[in-house]
Each structure stands twice: as C-alpha cells, then as structure tokens.
C-alpha cells in the first residue's frame, strides 16, 4: 500500500531524508528479508555532504544499517584553516527493533508503529574535533520512533525522540565545551501520497548545540519523492541545515537515489 519497500535517511536507517521512521526496511514483507541501498548528495551554500549505505530488514522486526558520510568543506576549508576540500568523514552503524504496531495495516486503530534504535557513530577527525571544542570522535544515539500511515487520508506521519551528543550529526564529533551531556532532540515528518508514484512532504529535526565556537540550529526540508516502481525511489528536496561551523544559513538541495527489494 506504500509505494516503496524502503527508503533510507541520511544516517542509513529506514526513514525519510532527515527523519528516522519506525518502519523496518523491506516492510512490504513480514516473511523475509528486505534490503535497501542509498546514495545521497547534499549541496549547501558553502559545504557539501555525500552519504551512501545500506539497510537490511529481517521479518519486519529488526533492521541493521550502515552509512558512510563525507562532509566536504569545499572553499570554506581554507578560511577555517583546514585546507581546501578538507573532509570530515563518519561511519554509522545502526540497529532498530520494532516493538509494537503495524504502521501500514493497523488502519482500524490509532496506535502507531513504535520502534527503538541505536546508532553508533565514528568520526575520523579526532584532532580537529578536539581543537574546536568537541569532546569525542565517537558517540552513540538512542531513539524511539513512531510512524503511522493514515491511509484513508493518504498521509504518512512520523515522530522521533532522540538522545544524542552529536555535533552536526556527529561529523563534528560528540559533546562539547558548552554542553557535554546527552540532549533530547526530536524529528517530525509528514508525507502526502499524491498517487502511486509521487509523495510530497516536509521534515523537521532539532540538533544539540554543544560547541561554543559555532552555533548549531534545527534542520528542515521540503521534499518530493518519486517511485517509478517498487524497487527504486528518488527524492529531491530543498534542505536548510542552519548554521554550520561559522557559516550561516546552509541551504541547498538534497538528492537521493535508493534501490531495494
């Protein structure tokens, strides 16, 4: 009933672009294995981000995911004293467990599908991270996600609560000189299914603000997703990640290609 068997968010877990969903990758099939790969490019005013990865869903119960992100400082690397095109990379290992509910089939109750998950992140620029006030190059996020398809309204809604120390998703490390504990952040998203092949939606995600050298803001996106068939999806979005590393108003395009079964 959903147009695709899976979509991945920027950290590799089943979800939209920025927001994590409670759905398990390959949720079309409760009796087997589903998989999804993604390649995502985000072009911002002063930076760019590439992400690729995959997710495997087991019996609509457990999801394992991996993503690698490369954040390119482009010309801003020079002014930041890091060098042109200096890159921050990060590996993200995720696991998600569906606790209750069936977002797609339970159309006769208000109960959403609820899942919990963990994302372990390893950034590669420990020295720079400590120089800018970050406390660690490794961190672990914990989240609970609720998703519900309101099929009679053709509307998919998600909300996620996350405990995280990550600076800019973890690319700039974890914890900081301003705040070193876990912050509670949230993600909200909604998508309207226009037809079998097209969905329009919006996402919003708050982030911690741990580093005193540069402010960090919430992120949002407005997206259109196209599903030519069950196995392929493409998402094009306008994304605003706020200020990043002293560079204000980082906006641009988000483009993601996904393939799965």
């Amino acid at each position: 009933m959903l147009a695709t068997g899976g979509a991945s968010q920027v950290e590799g877990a089943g979800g939209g672009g920025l927001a994590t969903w409670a759905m398990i990758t390959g949720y079309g099939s409760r009796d087997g294995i589903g998989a999804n790969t993604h390649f995502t490019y985000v072009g911002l005013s002063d930076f760019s981000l590439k992400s690729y990865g995959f997710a495997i869903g087991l019996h609509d119960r457990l999801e394992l995911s991996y993503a690698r992100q490369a954040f390119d400082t482009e010309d801003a690397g020079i002014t930041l004293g890091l060098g042109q095109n200096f890159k921050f990379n990060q590996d993200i290992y995720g696991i998600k467990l569906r606790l209750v509910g069936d977002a797609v089939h339970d159309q006769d109750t208000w109960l959403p599908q609820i899942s919990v998950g963990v994302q372990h992140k390893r950034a590669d620029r420990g020295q720079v991270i400590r120089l800018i006030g970050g406390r660690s190059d490794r961190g672990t996020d914990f989240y609970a996600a609720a998703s519900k398809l309101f099929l009679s309204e053709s509307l998919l809604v998600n909300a996620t609560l996350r405990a995280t120390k990550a600076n800019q998703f973890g690319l700039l490390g974890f914890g900081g000189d301003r705040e070193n504990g876990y912050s509670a952040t949230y993600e909200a998203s909604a998508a309207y299914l226009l037809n079998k092949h097209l969905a329009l939606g919006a996402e919003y995600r708050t982030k911690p603000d741990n580093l005193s050298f540069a402010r960090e803001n919430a992120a949002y996106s407005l997206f259109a997703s196209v599903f030519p068939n069950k196995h392929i999806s493409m998402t094009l979005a306008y994304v605003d990640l706020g200020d990043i590393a002293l560079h204000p108003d980082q906006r641009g395009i988000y483009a993601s290609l996904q393939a799965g079964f």
Partner: protein
Amino acid sequence: MYDAMSKAVLVVAVFVVAVMVNFRPAPALAGDTLYTALGGNEGIVRLVDKATEEFLADPRISNTFADTNIARFKEKLAEQFCELSGGPCVYSGQDMHAAHKGLKLRSRDFSALVENLQVAMGKCDIPFSTQNKLLALLAPMHRDVVTQ
C-alpha cells in the same frame, strides 16, 4: 529558539497548502459514501471482475485460486465491498479467518493481492484517494487473512 519555531511553522504551512492544493472534494451527491464513489453496485461488480482477472493472471497467487468456485468468490467479494463501503448489502460469506486459514497465506501473498486490486482500481478509473479509502478498510484484515 524563535528562529526554529518560525521555521517549523513555515514547514507546516507549506505542507498544509500542498495538501489543500491537491484536495479534490468529492461531488456532494446525496448518499455521499465510499459506495457511491466506487460507482455503486455496478461499479463494485465491475471492480471485482477486473480484480479477479488480475488475481488469476498473477503467477504469484493464481495457484491459490485453483480449487475456488470463482462465481461464488466474486459474488461474496462484491457483497463485502458493498457492505464495507456503506452500500445497501449484507455480507453473507464466511468470516475472513475461516475463509483463508486453509490457504496458509503469507504477508507477501497479501501484498500481491493488494497490488492487483490497485491495478484493477486504476483500470476502473477510481481516483487514488478513493482507492486508499477502500484499502484502509481492507488493510486490518491482514490480521485474519495472513496465518503463516
């Protein structure tokens, strides 16, 4: 903080507008139910015919219907769609668990059947939002129909 709030409001506003632009109110006929949106009894019989054609032509599930009395199946399915959508019928077939338990159906069989039904609704020119209203009534039957 104020900045974040105003952005959130903007996102929601744009989204609401997008939904409204695409919202086509159904014609305000007397008895404005899903039943009328599906074309009444005639529309439902046509849909059930088309859908059954699709089921029987799909190698993933056609075998399940090998021993089925197709005329009875169509009659009961039409009756059920009529009742569910608010039409003047009373479903007289078996309950969903009893009708399917011997078939040992898996979730993927259910998905395949739904896909075929969507194709059939498309061929009957039933608008996407109306299709989803019918599917919303059928989706919970996954619980009773899928036993493996």
